[in-house]
């Protein structure tokens, strides 16, 4: 237990990072698979998209693609070091997923107007559900991460 704990504490940041980027990659994947491909709610390109929206969308797409793979390799790396801390990792996952969705739902959909969640409907309820869910994920993630940070300090004190 003590060795497991020591390696977890040594890799607090990597646990958080790998959860965060996998969470981001996961929601980006859901977004692409469910909303773009299956439901056809989102559009590939919305005629009202300004250039900055196109750039932001492109960078996030590339980043989420990379994150998904890199995040999975980081989990493998933590596991071979016996340092994977699922609780902290999950906190990171919620932060990454919620944070990205909140960014997507506010900045990208509303401010940059890349595309809307759905077309030809009253959009406000969709936006509220989307953003509130994202905020809940983000807050829950932050709480878990702070708690694991404290747990790690307490354990260090007793060790």
């Amino acid at each position: 237990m003590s060795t497991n704990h020591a390696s977890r504490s040594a890799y607090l940041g990597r646990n958080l990072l790998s959860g965060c980027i996998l969470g981001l990659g996961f929601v980006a994947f859901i977004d692409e698979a469910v909303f773009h491909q299956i439901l056809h709610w989102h559009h590939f390109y919305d005629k009202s998209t300004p250039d900055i929206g196109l750039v932001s969308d492109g960078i996030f797409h590339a980043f989420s693609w990379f994150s998904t793979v890199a995040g999975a390799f980081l989990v493998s790396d933590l596991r071979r070091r016996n340092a994977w801390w699922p609780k902290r990792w999950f906190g990171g996952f919620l932060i990454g997923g919620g944070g990205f969705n909140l960014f997507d739902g506010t900045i990208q959909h509303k401010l940059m107007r890349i595309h809307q969640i759905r077309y030809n409907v009253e959009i406000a309820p969709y936006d509220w559900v989307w953003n509130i869910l994202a905020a809940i994920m983000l807050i829950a993630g932050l709480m878990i991460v702070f708690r694991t940070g404290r747990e790690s300090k307490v354990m260090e004190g007793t060790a």
Partner: protein
Amino acid sequence: MNHNHVHRASELPNELLLALPFVLVILIYLLFGLVSNQCHKQWPIYRYIFWGSGVLSAAVALIGPIADTAHENFTAHMVGHLFLGMLAPLLLVHAAPMTLLMRTLSVGHARKLSRVLKSFPVRIYCHPVVASILNIGGLWVLYTTELYSAMQHHALLHMVVHFHVFLAGYLYTISIIYIDLTAHRYSFSLRTIVLILSLAAHGILSKYIYAYPPGGVTIEQAHMGGMIMYYGGDIIEICLIFLFCQQWYKAARPRTSVSISH
């Protein structure tokens, strides 16, 4: 590359003639493998397979039905470019041609070659930033200027553009993943940033093409072509990302009980 669509009957021997360089390139690789096997350990079979399939996927873009259709059809053009600029380089890199060449050459010649590879110009071209600007920047120039429509009317320009697409794609691939001999290796963090930004620029360009068709391309064709570039690119990019991360995973393996990251 100026195909004459009127004389269908005379096309077949012509096509065969065009296929000759590709056959030759495969044979040379095979020969080098066999020769170097005399004084080194066996060159692995899978490398021959990678070389063969890499040359084939470049050939698909340059000769045959896809290349012929690509003159009028932007969708076919885009499929061709995916093969030529992305898939072929990825396959060819796995054949490690430079490593094979080095072990086939005599020591003296190999030393000279290695000096060339370490020379300043080659190192500049193989720098991840330079290679990705040549690769993705070249594509931006091709599709956002008059170059695309000009290329369809000038056979020589057409050849030069295709050569550039392939070569820049190859340089880009060897600058990101280190499978073959590499004169200078750059850090994972630099290559991560370059990789993400270049993939982003590729995705942005495909949506840009979707919205603003290049000269002489209809809006329907631009939609199809843009989406092929975006989603087809995604498939090959995920392979590139996977290989890149796998190399990090191997390089970062814990060697002692007290391990240091990177």
